[in-house]
């Protein structure tokens, strides 16, 4: 059984049919790419999957469980974490605290034991600190743990967002243009990191990306969206050599 099963997802905003009969099936451990020209509806699909919008029609099944109409917080608890196209960090919190917000539901204790500083508080905080540092280590951010997150350089902010998403211990990680605004070196480094987390965190990744080097370099399978509809899907190589896809991206000659 596949990890994520999406059947005939539809949503319209007024007269705009933003996503039309969207289907996707992602196997456990896949590194799956979702590509398409600007305005094709890729981020809308992410917003549907994470509960920012609820679909007009269709079903989303994660790991055998119907999560179609759950709210964002419950979708996260069900096992979907995401990053955002326009970075959304908690800018007035330190780098470490950003990750610790991600660990919120993993090491719980009550507000009362926080105020009274009970042993439960100290124990959970210690575990959180250790786990947060582990994650920051993976993304090479451990040295900046106490920096205010808004003071990080752009590339590191993107990495921190991934670290925060991973902290919630998801089954499925959605990355919305992780390489946007990165230079070729940073992109190459990011590709290594994505490969590393897929192997070491036992996780499935769905990513939106425009950087074709990254897409062809790490994605095993692709779905191409155009005007809210699926244009092509399949193995990366096949899809990228599909004349329809080339036409949609580059235009006819």
């Amino acid at each position, binding site marked *: 059984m596949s990890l994520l099963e999406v059947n005939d997802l539809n949503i319209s905003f007024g007269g705009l049919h933003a996503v039309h009969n969207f289907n996707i099936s992602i196997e456990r451990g896949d590194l799956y790419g979702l590509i398409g020209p600007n305005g094709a509806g890729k981020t809308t699909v992410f917003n549907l999957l*994470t509960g920012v919008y609820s679909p007009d029609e269709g079903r989303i099944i994660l790991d055998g469980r119907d999560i179609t109409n759950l709210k964002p917080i419950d979708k*996260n608890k069900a096992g979907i974490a995401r990053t955002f196209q326009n970075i959304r960090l908690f800018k007035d919190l330190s780098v470490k605290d950003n990750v610790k917000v991600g660990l*919120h539901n993993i090491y719980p204790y009550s507000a009362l034991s926080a105020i009274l500083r009970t042993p439960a508080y100290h124990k959970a905080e210690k575990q959180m600190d250790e786990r947060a540092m582990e994650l920051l280590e993976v993304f090479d951010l451990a040295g900046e743990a106490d920096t205010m997150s808004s003071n990080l350089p752009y590339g590191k902010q993107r990495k921190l967002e991934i670290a925060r998403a991973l902290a919630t211990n998801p089954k499925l990680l959605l990355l919305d243009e992780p390489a946007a605004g990165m230079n070729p070196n940073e992109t190459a480094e990011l590709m290594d990191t994505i490969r590393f987390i897929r192997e070491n965190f036992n996780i499935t990744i769905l990513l939106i990306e425009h950087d074709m080097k990254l897409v062809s370099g790490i994605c095993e399978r692709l779905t191409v969206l155009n005007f809210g509809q699926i244009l092509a899907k399949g193995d990366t190589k096949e899809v990228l050599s599909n004349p329809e896809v080339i036409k949609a991206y580059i235009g006819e000659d």
Partner: protein
Amino acid sequence: MKKLTKQQKSNLITLAMVVCFYLICEIFIRTGLMSSHLKGLLVPLTYYAIAAVGLNLCVGILGELSLGHAGFMCIGAFSSSIFSVMTRDALPTVPRFILAFIIGVAMTALLGFLIGIPVLRLNGDYLAIVTLAFGEIIKNILNAVYMGVDDKGLHLSLKDAASMGLDASTGKKIINGAMGITGTPSDSNFTIAIIILLVSLIIVQNLVQSRDGRAIMSIRDNRIAAESTGINVTKYKMLAFTISAAIAGAAGVLFSHNISTLTAQGIYFGYNASIMLLVYVVLGGIGNIRGSVIAAMILYVLPELLRGMDKYRMLIYSIVLIVMMLFNWSPKAIEFRQNHLSKFSKRFRKEAAR
């Protein structure tokens, strides 16, 4: 000894500052060096600091502008005062004040919670306007209520004192409409006020540096990201707002037990008072708990001390407001402060190492 983090150190400094302030004031009082006018300001100054700490939790940490905190003070003041007046002869001072305090804080927390349910669905300006309205509603209702007690039980009226139908011999008026509550025992004093200030500081600081505090601040910084990171936005907004209201209620309890006649007047509980609290918070630094305490203390005492200057009083007061604003918010001033403070602490550390 365990090594303290920077945050823990900063918390301890705040608490130590309050304790030092208390000790200095006590020394001046004991040696008779403090005028009775100034002595009378000590309790108000402390409860306004408490209210400012409470409001800062809402404005600075949760990031939601509330203009209704004077209304919450009003609830704390009236509910605790009603209890104290009713049990004035039945209970000794200490348990009576403790119970009155608990009742005042619990009532405010409850009302804060109930008001929070509809109000926290709003954001920004809308939230400010609605909380402002709630503050005014609370004040105006308490201005119109008549309440009395006799051997048949509690009597309430919104018309006038006579229509309560109190028994002439055993009846006792508690709230006399716009005349308010008279005869609240003056159970609060400077020591109690300082203890409550310390407790509210500890509560707010410990909350902020915990899982719950981080959740609250993550909502402030980015609501959508907080939601998709698994933070229950509604729950944490309610938690912060309720605690914030309860602390303002605690300030109200001290307020009513420091004066003999409690009336729901605009200058104490109206929107002007709410805005004054907001001024303390903003000038002390939004989200800076220690700053709120210092700003509340300075800005409360200053106009009182300047009474002798008569016409120039508000002029000087406004200049002080502007200077404090520049000191706390101007980028240049912040840079200057950071440079000098870091030099100072470096030198201090070097000397300590020697």
